[in-house]
C-alpha cells in the first residue's frame, strides 16, 4: 500500500513550488469531495488553493482528461498516476498538448480503490501499472514487487465464450446504457466536440437509449479509441449503470498491440496506429 499521506504532502509541496515560481499557472490534482470516499478533480491556480489538495486511495480520476480544457500554451502541472501518464503521452502524440508546457507530477501507487465498490483497482479493470511511464517529478517511491499480471488476462473468460453468448453479454450490457455520455466525457482521449454521435449530418444513430443507437455509439467509440485507449478504466467507473466498457477497450487494445506492435501512450515518438501504416502490415490481420 502506498503512503498516501506522503504523496499528498509531496503533491502540495511541488504544487506550491511550481505556482510560487510561476512555472505553471494551474496544478491539476485532487481536492476533498462531499465525503472521504469521493475526492474530486481539482485545479489549483494559486498558492491559497493548495491547502485544498488531497490525495487518498479514491483519487482515481485521470487528470489528463482536463488538459485539453486549458488554452494552448498554458503551463500546467498535472498529477499523473501510471495510466494518466500514458494518457498524457498519447495526447502529446496527437499534438493536443505540448510536452514543454507540462510538468508531470508522477504518482507511483498501488492500492487505489473504486469508490463505488471499494475494490482495489488492478489489472482486471485497468492496465494495472503502478508507476508512471513519464514524469518530471516523482512524488513517492516507485512501486515494485507487485505481481505482474497482464492487463489482458481478464479477457480470457470472454474470449473463450461462445460468440452467441458473448453477443448476449454485450447486448445486455449495452442495452443498459442511458446515453449520459459519462464514458466519453471521463475519457482523456475523447476530446471531440462535437462527438460523432451528436452530429445531425449524418445522424449516425438514434438519440434514444435503445439497442441500435447504443450499439452504434459504443462500437464506434471502441473503434475511435482503438490504439489510443490507455486502459485507465475511467469510462467504466464513470458509468452510472456499470457497463464494463473497459473489457471491450482492453480487447481492442490487445488486438492493436498484437497487430501493430505498439501499445497506446507508451512512447512519445509513436504515431497513433490507425493514422499510420506499415507497407509490410500483413493481410492476415483481416482474416
Amino acid at each position, binding site marked *: 500500500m502506498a503512503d498516501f499521506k506522503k504523496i499528498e504532502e509531496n503533491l502540495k509541496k511541488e504544487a506550491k513550488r511550481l505556482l510560487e515560481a510561476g512555472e505553471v499557472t494551474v496544478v491539476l490534482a485532487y481536492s476533498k469531495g462531499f465525503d472521504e470516499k469521493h475526492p474530486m478533480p481539482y485545479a489549483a491556480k494559486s498558492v491559497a488553493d493548495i491547502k485544498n489538495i488531497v490525495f487518498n486511495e479514491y483519487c482515481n480520476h485521470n487528470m489528463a482528461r482536463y488538459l485539453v480544457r486549458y488554452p494552448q500554451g498554458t503551463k500546467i502541472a498535472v498529477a499523473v498516476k501510471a495510466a494518466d501518464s500514458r494518457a498524457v503521452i498519447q495526447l502529446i502524440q496527437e499534438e493536443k498538448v505540448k510536452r514543454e508546457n507540462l510538468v508531470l507530477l508522477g504518482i507511483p501507487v498501488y492500492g487505489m480503490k473504486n469508490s463505488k465498490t471499494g475494490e482495489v483497482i488492478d489489472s482486471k479493470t485497468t492496465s494495472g501499472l503502478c508507476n508512471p511511464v513519464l514524469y518530471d517529478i516523482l512524488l513517492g517511491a516507485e512501486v515494485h514487487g507487485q505481481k505482474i499480471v497482464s492487463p489482458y488476462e481478464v479477457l480470457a473468460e470472454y474470449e473463450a465464450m461462445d460468440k452467441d453468448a458473448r453477443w448476449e453479454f454485450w447486448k445486455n450490457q449495452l442495452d443498459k446504457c442511458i446515453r449520459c455520455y459519462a464514458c466519453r466525457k471521463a475519457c482523456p482521449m475523447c476530446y471531440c466536440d462535437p462527438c460523432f454521435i451528436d452530429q445531425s449530418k449524418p445522424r449516425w444513430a438514434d438519440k434514444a437509449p435503445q439497442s441500435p443507437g447504443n450499439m452504434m455509439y459504443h462500437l464506434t467509440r471502441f473503434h475511435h479509441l482503438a490504439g489510443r485507449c490507455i486502459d485507465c478504466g475511467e469510462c467504466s467507473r464513470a458509468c452510472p449503470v456499470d457497463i464494463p466498457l473497459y473489457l471491450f477497450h482492453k480487447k481492442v487494445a490487445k488486438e492493436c498491440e498484437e497487430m501493430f506492435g505498439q501499445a497506446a501512450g507508451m512512447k512519445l515518438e509513436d504515431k497513433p496506429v490507425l493514422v499510420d501504416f506499415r507497407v509490410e502490415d500483413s*493481410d492476415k490481420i483481416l482474416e
Partner: protein
Amino acid sequence: MAFEPKILGIACNWCTYTGADLAGTTRLLYPQNLRVVRVMCSSRINPSFIFRAFQLGADGVFVGGCHPGDCHYNTGNLYARRRLAVTKKILEFAGLEPGRFRVEWISASEGNKFAEVVQEFTAQIKNLGPQTKLKIQK
C-alpha cells in the same frame, strides 16, 4: 423459400469496382445477393458504415480495395487495412459471426477473382443464415 441473403459490398472505384465490371464484361456468373456501393477508395470507408450496414440488415458485408501497394491514392488501402482489421475484431468480440465481414483486395484485372469471392462469400453467408444480432428489429 431458401434463404437469400442480402450482402452489402463497398468497393473502390479504381480496382474492385472496375474488377466487378470486368467480371461482367467477361460474362462471369455469380449470385445476385451482393449490392455494391461505389466509393473512390477503400480508405473512404468509415468503420461506422460497416456497423450501419449490419444494422440495416445486411447478412454479410464485403469490402473490396486495390492490392496493397497498388492504391490509386498510393497509401489509402494501407490505412484501410488497419482500420478494417480493427472493425473486424470489434465485430467479433461483440459476438457477430466472424465470417460475416470480409475484406478482399481485387484489382481491376481480376474479374474472375471478384466473381469467385462473391460466389464463395455468398455461399458462406447462406451457411451462416440470417444476421439477426445487429439488425434493427422494427
